[in-house]
């Protein structure tokens, strides 16, 4: 789960990481009230999960209520790279002497945690990485040992942060690691991490991705869930617990396992069709899950054919077949189904489909021909 900046800062604050005081606002009036409470000057910041907010005009300084009113009015509803701004974060403006960069994430090939720290933070950190990789100090942290103060201090020295920033940076980075590990983050990133003229080090931005698998041990994550941006189809799928990604085409796709679902999207493209979605019903799907999947696909007005591609392992093909038949009885499906079943209990599953076969339910023996058939139907051939 990706957090918005203000949520990331709230999460940082739980672990003692210094952040600027601020408040959220969903309307212009709320923005003014937030600014009065926080104290001028303030920064009005668009809350969208996409980079380049500042360049798009989504971050503005305001010195009084009129300026807040003006900027909040402009930014609310703004479209930043396809993300509509629905919420603002109003925070006390900071004096900036220096901008640094800091992050922790998993290095998948080394299987250790990767810490990156640079004295050249700010908007162009990716450029810095390309042009002058030595400007980014890197450490690998063994997850069993964690990050010690001594190692952290040496890391800060290698990154050549300003002398007056060293103590504050060591303290903040240890807390950031704590947040990353105890807080079950996939990514904890601060860009920029700032040094103020008063010699304080603090987080001016927050990019946090939480590990969804760790949710059972983090009841406090509940508050982060409200504002996720999804289209109507994705929302319905999420409610039904399905892995769904909306696409633009006309062939609805249901498969089991992320790998097979991706391969199904690929093969529909390769035979000249346009997938309407990626939908993984997961392992061990039963009839009910298939009914839900078909209900979600049926919400998409662009779908002209539905390709169900199942290779049973944990999933049993007879359960899938029962779900297909049940869904056809319960829901008026907008498009015909082309189904291909193999693997666990495929014989039983195919028998169920054969008994119910029609122009609306077509069974194909293999993946390639099933894809071709589904595409032909979707294109009206």
């Amino acid at each position, binding site marked *: 789960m990706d957090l918005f900046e203000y949520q990331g800062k709230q999460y940082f604050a739980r672990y003692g990481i210094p952040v600027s005081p601020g408040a959220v606002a969903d309307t212009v009036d709320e923005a003014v009230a937030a600014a009065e409470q926080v104290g001028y000057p303030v920064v009005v910041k668009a809350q969208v999960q996409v980079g380049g907010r500042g360049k798009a005009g989504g971050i503005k300084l305001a010195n009084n209520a009129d300026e807040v009113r003006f900027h909040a009015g402009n930014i609310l509803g703004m479209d930043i790279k396809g993300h509509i701004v629905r919420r603002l974060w109003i925070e006390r403006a900071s004096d900036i002497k220096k901008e640094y960069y800091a992050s922790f994430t998993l290095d*998948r090939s080394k299987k250790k945690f*990767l810490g*990156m720290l640079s004295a050249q933070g700010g908007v162009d950190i990716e450029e810095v990485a390309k042009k002058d990789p030595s400007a980014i100090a890197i450490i690998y942290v063994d997850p069993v040992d964690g990050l010690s103060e001594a190692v952290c201090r040496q890391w800060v020295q290698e990154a050549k942060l300003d002398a007056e920033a060293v103590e504050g940076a060591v303290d903040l980075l240890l807390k950031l690691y704590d947040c990353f590990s105890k807080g079950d983050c996939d990514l904890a990133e601060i860009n920029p991490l700032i040094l103020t003229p008063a010699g304080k080090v603090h987080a001016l931005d927050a990019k946090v991705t939480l590990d969804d698998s760790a949710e059972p041990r983090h009841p406090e994550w509940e508050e982060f869930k409200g504002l996720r941006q999804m289209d109507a189809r994705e929302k319905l799928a999420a409610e039904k617990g399905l892995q769904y990604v909306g696409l633009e085409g006309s062939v609805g796709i249901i498969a089991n396992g992320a790998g097979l679902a991706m391969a199904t999207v690929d093969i529909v493209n390769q035979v000249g069709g346009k997938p309407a979605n990626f939908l993984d019903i997961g392992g061990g799907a039963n009839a009910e899950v298939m009914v839900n999947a078909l209900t979600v696909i049926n919400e998409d007005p662009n779908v002209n054919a539905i390709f169900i591609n199942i290779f049973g392992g944990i999933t049993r093909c007879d359960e899938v077949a029962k779900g297909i038949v049940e869904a056809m009885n319960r829901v008026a499906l907008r498009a015909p189904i082309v189904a291909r079943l193999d*693997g666990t209990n495929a014989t039983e599953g195919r028998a169920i489909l054969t008994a119910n076969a029609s122009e609306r339910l077509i069974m194909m023996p293999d993946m390639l021909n099933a894809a071709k058939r589904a595409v032909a139907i979707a294109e009206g051939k």
Partner: protein
Amino acid sequence: MAIWLDENSRVVVQGLTGSQGRFYGLRNRAYGTKIVAGTNPKKAGTDVEGIPIFASVREAVEKEGANVAFVIVPEMMAAAAVMEAAAAGVPFIVCVTEHIPMHDQAKLFNQLKRDYPTTRLLGPNCAGILSPGKANIGFTPAEVSKPGGPVGIVSRSGTLAYQALYELTESGIGQTTCVGIGGDPVPGTSFIDALAAFEADPETQAIVMIGEIGGSAEEEAAEYIVQSGLKKPVVAYIAGQSAPPGKRMGHAGAITSGNKGTAKGKMAALTAAGALVASNPTEIGALVKQALGR
């Protein structure tokens, strides 16, 4: 021959008394796998369809000679279950459990490497391992496989491994072992481990490798193929060629991964390493025939 699992493997199932563990444990036994024990401290002394339940893996090792552990327990218990099996001296552990938190996986991997460096963990979140005609652990539907070799399969995705088995069997080509390494961030066994094991297995003559977008494991495998001078031909498929570019957050991924992670980049790396790269899974049979000179 086969890699890591064969007719002499004696398997203890951690989670045999749960509904999933029971279903797959018994299904694997019905295939011929020697399922010799289950564990559950609260049900020690009972049995599941004749399979004795012990309080600990150590007891299963001592009394039944278990030398493989099949971990099929809930996600918050899985890391501890793997460590228990390793501490009991089990050299090969298959963990199918899904949704183990990333930080737990990372700790588990590094702890295992430190305390039990010779122990092999397969998974987590993998489909399991099948040596056709010999033994099966996990979810793989063995009925679509064909015993006798000569092809080894290694796949991140479970369902695509099944698809590969099916394509080969339909083409009249048998398999030595089909390994699911799982798609989680910190897998215990990598593509490279499987490639090395298949290279060393005299019965395996060609290797099918199935990857997917994300991470850099496929690029590393390509590098390994070149650097190790791998002699056996590799047929590869990468899923996600037309996946929409995922939105990414922050810069850490971009700074570290560069061009790695895309299907295009992975396919190019494997092609450059001499692998035959399929554009979809239904091409696997024909490409393997070509690789075997049939």
